[in-house]
């Protein structure tokens, strides 16, 4: 493979970086909100609500991401495309776009993992913290939001940074449902030029760079919120 092809394919793959990043940030941010609801459900007193949340977490942590994407895209997507009234509605343009299936699949997946991380962190906060906030007259929700959660999130930061990296890597699976993010673009160029090693090195380097920035960012956050003991 000549140098010229390396340069053009580098630019072409770099153009796909925003797609990967938007996939990851969108699914992570919505997934985090979903995860908070899931944690609230899994800590609830009602057995049914707890069971629902736990089985959600169990399913999304116990099956490969690929199956979840397939079920959503080839399952739900196929079923939606069979419904005539949806095909005629204005939503069809959105429903027909594989990008949203990837975002939703990644979001559901990360919500399950994040919920488990957050639950572990909340349980790790000593009970005395909650008891002392009750004794100061705070309600359950006040103590949860003002006392427990801030401490739990600090506790969860290292595990969550792993989850973010897993999401960056997981976003490469979106290429299987024809989304042109980094891996998808790389695979397209590969099928056109039959080059492989150079393309994998370029794509791998970009992924490593993204993950390096993420690790640095989380290291910075961990240092910022570190407990300073005398």
């Amino acid at each position, binding site marked *: 493979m000549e140098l010229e092809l390396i340069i053009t394919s580098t630019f072409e793959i770099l153009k796909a970086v925003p797609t990967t990043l938007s996939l990851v940030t969108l699914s992570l941010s919505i997934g985090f909100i979903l995860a908070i609801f899931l944690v609230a459900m899994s800590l609830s007193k009602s057995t049914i609500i707890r069971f629902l949340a736990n089985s959600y977490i169990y399913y999304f942590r116990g*099956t490969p991401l690929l*199956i979840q994407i397939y079920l959503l895209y*080839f399952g739900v997507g196929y079923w939606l495309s069979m419904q005539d009234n949806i095909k005629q509605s204005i939503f069809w343009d959105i429903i027909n776009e594989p990008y949203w299936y990837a975002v939703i699949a990644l979001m559901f997946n990360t919500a399950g993992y994040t919920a488990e991380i957050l639950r572990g962190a909340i349980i790790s906060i000593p009970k005395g913290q909650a008891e002392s906030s009750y004794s100061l007259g705070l309600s359950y929700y006040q103590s949860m939001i003002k006392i427990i959660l801030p401490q739990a999130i600090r506790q969860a930061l290292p595990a969550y940074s792993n989850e973010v990296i897993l999401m960056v890597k997981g976003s490469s699976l979106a290429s299987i449902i024809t989304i042109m993010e980094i891996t998808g673009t790389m695979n397209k160029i590969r099928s056109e030029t039959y080059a*492989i090693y150079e393309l*994998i090195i370029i794509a791998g380097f970009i*992924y490593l760079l993204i993950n390096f920035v993420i690790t640095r960012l989380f290291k910075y956050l961990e240092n910022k919120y570190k407990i300073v003991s005398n």
Partner: protein
Amino acid sequence: MELLYWGNNGWGDEIFFASLITISLAVCSYGLGLILGLYIAIGKLYSNKIVKILLDGYTTVLRGIPELLVIYLLFFGGENIITQVASIFGYSGFINLPPFLIGVLAIGFISASYSAEVFRGSIQSVHKGQIEAGLSLCLNKNKIFNKVILPQAIRVAIPSLGNIWQLTLKDTALISVTGLAEIMRISRVATNSEREPFIFFIAAACIFLVLTSISTKIQIKIEKKYNESMVR
């Protein structure tokens, strides 16, 4: 539901054999990962600087890039490399690698990078006094490592190694892009020919759920067994 029956009319037998392929793929690549990971960890801890940098690079890269890239690299590029290596030794002709072997190598290499980090951490967690005690008993270096450090390190490593097993098991689903007839591939083929997406993908998801729950059960048992000596 008839679609899941055993025999020519249903996909039950295909899915069953596909699950066996998935399981054997996971076991082989996990085993490869464990052996390779242990050697990488030893190299990272006890060898010279150049080897250390190379091995650090290996674990960083393989843990930092998507699994799919590794699979593509071996699937599209692996045969070329092997053929070129073989031509150095005087073999002319193209060498074809079976997809199962490519899968084992790809997932095994990824799994190795994770288990190497686990082994490194757990070997480091063994107290230094243990080495000194071994030295005072006139054990040589190999004996200290094999009989004193490793058994204690493995006990520490077991919970994380269990997590890596689950990761490896789930990573095998990605091998379906190479066309190997494991669960994901078969459920995809069945879906395409029967136009019934939900049944086969849900069946595949259930198989994975059963596999992960069984491994969690086994994992808890093994952890208990290895911690027996530590419970007071």
